[in-house]
């Protein structure tokens, strides 16, 4: 299963009239919405289903009548294989982040005559400083969205689980404002960390942690076809001869204007200027962890046995003792569809009419336990999913 994709298996005894309604021939590209609770039959209007969603996807495949699958809603902006409208340009001069976001959707409307294929397109909060001049000569909407967030430091876009797209920094997307302390992240993860303490949830989780320098760089050069602009740092690592290490990376970004190359180089170097943790986390059993821990959110990892030890400045009380967990970003989250959730297909039958198909009675529920991949505290999500060319 690739990033953002979904798959639902229906039970053997699902009536034909239900599986007929999942036929891609008839209801192809219907939206699949997973809600953390079932909505009572009479109340399951399209609006209510959308607003309850914690995940939304697109129905593309029905296999052996009972297994439905497809990509996440983001597919509407362009597939991971680059499919989608690519022959259109978008340029703007010296715009702020919010203005750039609005400008991109306005440009899409101007070129294609319809608004962007998402139910909302917002900057939910946070303050992102600086103006940039986006210049995109080709690429799908998705590639342009990745490009937009690459121009600023530590911002990203995400699907909000309800058919919409949000653009912001981590504070705007995950509501993580305020001083350091437990609430600087969405949850605490670790062995026997379950419970809720001072309004902050913990999940019993096992971690497999690796610490590495595989992405580390002492200099990053960004070029758009001409000479590269470099961002460098002072390192403490040395090569075998005893001189300071030189680890330079090359980033080709043809769509960046010359004036923004320095900012892009600095933003990229900011991501790889220290060692990285690469951690797999398995949540042992918790209901709908995806509702609390959204992909891209920060989490605290507390697992002494794996050597996870964070910054002393981040210490706080947890279960009666002072802990010093690592702050990490969730960059991938694979979670089961469990008994108690609501699973709906929203079939758009006309310009403003939707048929709600409630599959919750027929889903083969999966056992609890989810897997997450977490990375550097300030790892830009766009770095993970965007298509870039980086050479060592």
């Amino acid at each position: 299963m690739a990033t953002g994709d979904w798959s639902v298996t229906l039970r053997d005894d699902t009536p034909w009239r239900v599986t007929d309604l999942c036929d891609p021939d008839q209801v192809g590209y219907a939206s699949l919405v997973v809600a953390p609770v079932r909505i009572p039959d009479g109340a399951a209007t399209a609006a209510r289903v959308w607003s309850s969603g914690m995940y939304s996807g697109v129905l593309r495949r029905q296999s052996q009548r009972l297994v439905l699958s497809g990509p996440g809603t983001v597919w509407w902006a362009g597939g991971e294989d680059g499919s989608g409208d690519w022959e259109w340009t978008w340029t703007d001069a010296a715009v702020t982040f919010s203005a750039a976001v609005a400008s991109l959707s306005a440009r899409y409307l101007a070129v294609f005559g319809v608004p962007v294929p998402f139910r909302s397109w917002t900057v939910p909060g946070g303050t992102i400083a600086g103006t940039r001049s986006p210049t995109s000569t080709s690429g799908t909407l998705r590639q342009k969205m990745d490009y937009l967030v690459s121009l600023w430091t530590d911002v990203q876009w995400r699907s909000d689980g309800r058919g919409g797209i949000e653009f912001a920094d981590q504070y705007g997307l995950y509501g993580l404002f305020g001083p350091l302390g437990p609430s600087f992240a969405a949850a605490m993860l670790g062995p026997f960390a379950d419970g809720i303490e001072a309004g902050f949830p913990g999940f019993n989780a096992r971690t497999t942690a690796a610490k590495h320098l595989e992405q580390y760089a002492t200099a990053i050069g960004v070029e758009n076809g001409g000479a590269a602009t470099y961002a460098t740092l002072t390192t403490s690592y040395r090569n075998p001869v005893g001189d300071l290490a030189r680890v330079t990376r090359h980033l080709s970004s043809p769509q960046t204007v010359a004036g923004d190359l320095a900012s892009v180089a600095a933003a990229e170097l900011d991501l790889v200027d220290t060692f990285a943790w690469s951690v797999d986390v398995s949540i042992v059993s918790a209901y709908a962890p995806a509702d609390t821990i959204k992909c891209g959110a920060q989490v605290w990892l507390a697992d002494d046995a794996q050597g996870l030890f964070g910054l002393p400045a981040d210490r706080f009380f947890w279960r009666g003792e002072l802990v010093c967990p690592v702050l990490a970003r969730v960059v991938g989250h694979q979670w089961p569809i469990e008994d108690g959730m609501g699973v709906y297909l929203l079939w758009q039958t006309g310009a403003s009419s939707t048929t709600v198909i409630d599959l919750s009675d027929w889903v083969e529920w999966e056992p609890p336990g989810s897997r997450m991949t977490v990375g550097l505290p300030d790892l830009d999500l766009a770095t993970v999913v965007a298509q870039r060319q980086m050479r060592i």
Partner: protein
Amino acid sequence: MAGISIGRFGLNPTLGEIHADSMKLDGDTFTVSGDLIRAAADTDALSVIKLRAVCQQIVGMVAAGAGEIVVPLVWSESTQFDGWWRPISAEHDLAHPVLQGETLRWQFQLERVSGWRAPWLEHRAQLTLLPNDHSLVPVTNFTGPAVGGSAGELSPYPTGGGPTPFAAGDGSTSLWRLEWGSAAETVRRVDYRYAGLAAAHYTGAATIDTYYGTSVPSTNLTGEETEWYPVVGRQVSTPYLRVGNGMVRVRPMDWSTGAGGRAEFEWWSGSAWVSHMFEFGSAGTTSWNTADVSGFGPTLTGVHVLRNSPETSTIRAIYDVYQRGSAQVDFTVRRGGKTVSIVMTEPVGTARQWMIRPVTATPTTSVDAGTMAQTTASSNRKLVFMCPTTHTRNLATGEMFITTANATGRFGVGMQHNTGTAWHESIAAMTAHYYSQPSLKLVAAGR
């Protein structure tokens, strides 16, 4: 005493000697077993209550999150097995130890720790300073049990800088304390290794006890019942828990004992446990003196073990809070410490003004911005009160309350043993054990 002890099992003299009658050694795997008999006539017999205590100690050894990765084994009849082992399995064959004449068969399977007679016990502390509003940066310390000699074999490996070892006996408990202090070393991770005697491992250890009697236990003020026995691991579900280390002890309480929303703090006077009752409360964003005060109680809705190890033990008590739901109060005691660390939160994380005060007004004197001590000693001991957060204090009563609403209320209550500085009994040394607060864990053993 004679008999066998594996970890805390078999260690408590009130429970009687435990004798093993069968053992098998297969390479590094050691299987040992014996009988416990429930019969009034037999000299080795145990009452129902004692059988319950012993059964808990057996199953608790390997329950999830037990808290001790290795345990010492001491066997007087066969001392060649004395040393450190890793528990693999622990079982007994009696589900309901109530029938007179029934024999309970227990069995442990253990794996030898490398260097098993005297392995390095590596302890790690993640950091060493309790964040506090008073700019207090006390001497940091680490305490271990008697290891035969002033500090036994000790190899401290702090990350950067070097501590000054200072072995300090502590009367009957024979502990030692390693102290160091410099601004640069106050907040960082430290690693300590020491090697010592299996028989001394539980000296002054943080211990959690539970009560198995059929009546509701009373406090030491009125005369305490005797059926409190040590708990192993987390697998215990009686409604009564207390945590202590042989010098201080604390027990959360509820209305059924006639003292709602309170905890009993006790110190060891040298011959008996002396009791002091404390009560808790929280207030909203208005001033403390208005009607928006909610004392905790009347009901203690639950108490369970968060961590149970000789270095640190923590219990969590859930107090009913009037018209607010509940509050979680965590009590932590560490080996060698004469303070109890108390952390109060509400599950939903509402910021509250937190309060703690002795039930009987206790005149106190300010020591510094974070500490106040009882003015008049009794039996050479004084109560000491600590709060790392900015707070208001009432010196006449001993009350401390945190006036800026905070999601977490942190306090410490302790005992100063008033016999002078040679045994590190000054208030400064004692509060250092609270304000410098390494979360000590035994992480590895072997040599």
